[in-house]
């Protein structure tokens, strides 16, 4: 039974680490956002407000969990659980250093992609069951956004998997020992980052929260511990995508002098800070712009990328050719993209045909 005990201990350790990380991330985000916006951020709870998240968590746990009149009881209560469970399950196979993982899987990358997709169903359940038009709109946007961005994300990961010839995160890190995949595969990295941001619904893709348009999206009606569960899912996912970016493209825990864990956490937090910085900097895209970006640019680009990697592997070309081809493709894609965004592209279709959503009828 010792392996059961071992597994249980590792699971508890990862859960503890995640809870601590989420509290820290929330504090960090508020602090960094505050500084960027020439504010102090949280200051009152302990020096520099470091205990602010703890106080907030306590408040949320003690708060009453409201259920709006006319909400669909079971779906409303299950929504947060379905959203948070996959977010936590993903961490089974994400290593923090060589061997420091609950269970390294042969199909690790695929497992992460598959499980994290289910999380969205929880958010859609929440939005639909709340009996609130803003929540319903948020749910529809969530579904549309996730369907669009799952594909480029998976295809970007496929590029890395093809190069590493393995789906295990441990193997992929080992494969990057001389050069991280960021240098070999800048295009995959860019695709992963854009699609990852959309998966996380962070700026500039925070379309289904969109506080200024639909209040708070699918979570409008939630309060107390259930709302906290959604928040936990969001931040755990943020940390997971950052850790994945570090593991898949920056060589994971490899680095000179410092211990493995320190290297991985440094790289991960670099991405976390980058994402927070984006939130303070970029405006939000419209939903039709988001869909156009995914289907017209990211998906074709990802397919072209896979084709190029296949050629590279089959003819065993030197590494710099792949880097060059990758950069060239990204450059070629930027031209129509720039014309599209800057409004210089010829108006090929009416706005309604540009991937804009059909009108959503409220249930009232």
């Amino acid at each position, binding site marked *: 039974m010792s392996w059961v005990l071992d597994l249980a201990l590792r699971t508890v350790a990862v859960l503890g680490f995640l809870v601590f990380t989420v509290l820290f991330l929330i504090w960090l985000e508020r602090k960094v956002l505050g500084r960027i916006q020439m504010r102090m951020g949280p200051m009152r709870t302990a020096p520099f407000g470091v205990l602010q998240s703890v106080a907030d968590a306590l408040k949320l746990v003690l708060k009453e969990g409201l259920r709006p009149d006319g909400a669909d009881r079971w779906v409303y209560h299950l929504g947060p659980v379905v959203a948070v469970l996959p977010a936590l399950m993903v961490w089974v196979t994400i290593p923090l250093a060589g061997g420091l993982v609950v269970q390294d899987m042969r199909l690790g990358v695929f497992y992460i992609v*598959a499980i994290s997709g289910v999380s969205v169903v929880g958010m*859609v359940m929440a939005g639909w069951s709340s009996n609130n038009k803003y929540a319903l709109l948020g749910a529809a946007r969530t579904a549309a956004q996730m369907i669009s961005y799952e594909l480029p994300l998976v295809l970007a990961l496929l590029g890395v998997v093809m190069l590493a010839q393995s789906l295990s995160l441990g193997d992929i890190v080992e494969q990057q020992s001389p050069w991280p995949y960021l240098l070999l595969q800048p295009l995959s990295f860019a695709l992963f980052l854009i699609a990852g941001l959309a998966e996380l619904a962070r700026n500039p893709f925070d379309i289904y929260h969109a506080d200024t348009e639909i209040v708070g999206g699918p979570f409008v009606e939630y309060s107390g511990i259930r709302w906290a569960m959604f928040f936990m899912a969001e931040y755990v996912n943020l940390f997971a995508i950052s850790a994945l970016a570090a593991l898949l493209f920056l060589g994971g825990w490899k680095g000179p002098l410092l211990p493995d864990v320190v290297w991985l956490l440094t790289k991960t937090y670099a991405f976390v800070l980058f994402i927070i910085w984006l939130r303070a900097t970029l405006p939000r895209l419209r939903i039709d712009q988001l869909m156009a970006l995914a289907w017209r640019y990211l998906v074709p680009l990802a397919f072209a990328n896979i084709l190029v990697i296949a050629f590279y592997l089959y003819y065993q070309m030197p590494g710099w050719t792949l880097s060059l081809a990758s950069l060239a493709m990204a450059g070629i894609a930027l031209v129509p993209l720039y014309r599209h965004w800057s409004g210089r592209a010829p108006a090929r279709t009416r706005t309604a045909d540009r991937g804009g959503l059909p009108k*959503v009828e409220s249930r009232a």
Partner: protein
Amino acid sequence: MAVWLGFGVLAGATVAGALGTVTSRNVVHAALFLLVTLIAVAGLFLMLFAEFLALVQVLLYGGAIVLVLLFALMLTRIRGTAASLDNPQRPLAIVAALATVGLLLGVVLSTQWPVQQPGGGPVGFPQWGASLFRQWAIPFELASVVLLVALIGAVVISRPGGEE
């Protein structure tokens, strides 16, 4: 023992989810019950050491297809769909269901239990890919052509002013 317990739980969830799907009067509930069934079937695949198949099941059916279903359902008015839950195809559905039961029973009864594993042990991921894209490449491509046709058909039907 643990295997039987796991199988019992998963099989129970599969059947319960399927019953919920067909008996629920609310289409969104039906879609969510369907998700339960699909995930439980993924669990059954996992118990057969077909972890790749299990993950594909979760990714495609659990994530994408149920999501598309929910998305489509949310765009329709939920209250108005209760009347359209039934249609006159019941007899046909019964025939199809009985044919499926017959086929499955036939296979179960004509198999010698316990089954001898042909290869011995779980199939590795590389072998999986090789057999899919070499030995079974043509059926695989045919399936994608069918999907492509369906996709184009959907686009043609949904185009404004496309119908005669």
